[in-house]
């Protein structure tokens, strides 16, 4: 009686963990020759541990990546920076944009913008919320506002 061993296609399916026809599955379970062949192929296709990096190398690479990682901060500073800049520019330019607001001739827009840049460069957050600055700006606004309505 001739023994029908597993075909190449059946071996491939079994190597990939897929199902084969019932007779082939039964043969794979009972035939010592095919079981050994399948096991040898599985072993040959598995990754040999010797090619894996040492624990020290793994840790070194992991640590290097983590050291270079800029973890997200709870407060995202760029947002505050932009908010502060927007508030400051709006407060300073508002008088100039009002009808007649720029007609006083005593406010130099370029000088104001230069001042804004300098303040932001020094400390944007405190510049935006400086009580002295706000007070001064409010006074400036009053003067210009009054001039435009009179």
């Amino acid at each position, binding site marked *: 009686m001739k023994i029908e061993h597993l075909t*190449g*296609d059946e*071996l*491939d399916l079994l*190597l*990939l963990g897929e199902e084969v026809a019932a007779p082939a599955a039964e043969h794979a379970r009972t035939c010592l020759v095919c079981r050994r062949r399948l096991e*040898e*192929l599985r*072993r*040959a*296709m*598995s*990754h*040999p*541990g*010797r*090619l*894996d*990096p040492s624990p020290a*190398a*793994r840790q*070194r*690479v*992991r640590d*290097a*990546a*983590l050291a*270079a*990682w800029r*973890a*997200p*901060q*709870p407060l995202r500073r760029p947002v505050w920076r932009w908010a502060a800049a927007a508030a400051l520019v709006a407060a300073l330019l508002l008088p100039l944009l009002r009808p007649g607001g720029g007609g006083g001739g005593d406010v130099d827009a370029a000088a104001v913008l230069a001042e804004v840049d300098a303040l932001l460069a020094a400390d944007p957050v405190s510049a935006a919320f400086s009580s002295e600055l706000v007070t001064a700006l409010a006074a400036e606004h009053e003067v210009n506002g009054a001039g435009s309505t009179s």
Partner: protein
Amino acid sequence: MASVLRSELPVVSDDEFELVERARGGDRDAAATLLERHELSVWRVCRHLLPPGDDVEAAVQETFMRALAKLGRYSGSGSFGGWLTAIAVNYCRDRLRRVRLVPFRPLEVDGEDENNPLAVLPAPEADPERTAMGRQAMARVHAEVARLPQRQREAFVLRFFAGLKLAGIAAALGVDVGSVKTHLHRAVRRVREHVQEAVP
């Protein structure tokens, strides 16, 4: 079996999802744990998909750095290991394109040189002949994998070396599961036939 990897998980586990959330909040310990869990897959993918002679260690580090920078984009719909492996695959593809090494140089099959990474030793067996045959078969597998067309090689490496399942491989390669099966079947047939020529 020692080669079973955590990246075989089909979806992200609660524990892993919590780690991802903590890492997104800046928790370095959580990020380290995530990397440690899946790093072996990334190492193996880089080792087998990079152009010959490329720096595997640098590739793994770059993969980790890209993953950490993109943590906010991880949706959680697939396994974290699969997502991380996809980043590694993309990095290796970039390297292949840049060095313009279209044909993969086959690795040496024979030889007992200590510096030869393919001088691998299967588990010791009582039968020296079988040990030698196992070593030869393993070396032939690695040599043939290096010669496979790129998509087949990627599918084979992700399945057999990185331990990903079909869905994970499909996600990592950006193709559907049917395509993965096709690539895998072709790759396995070719590798098996090559091994059986030498070790019938």
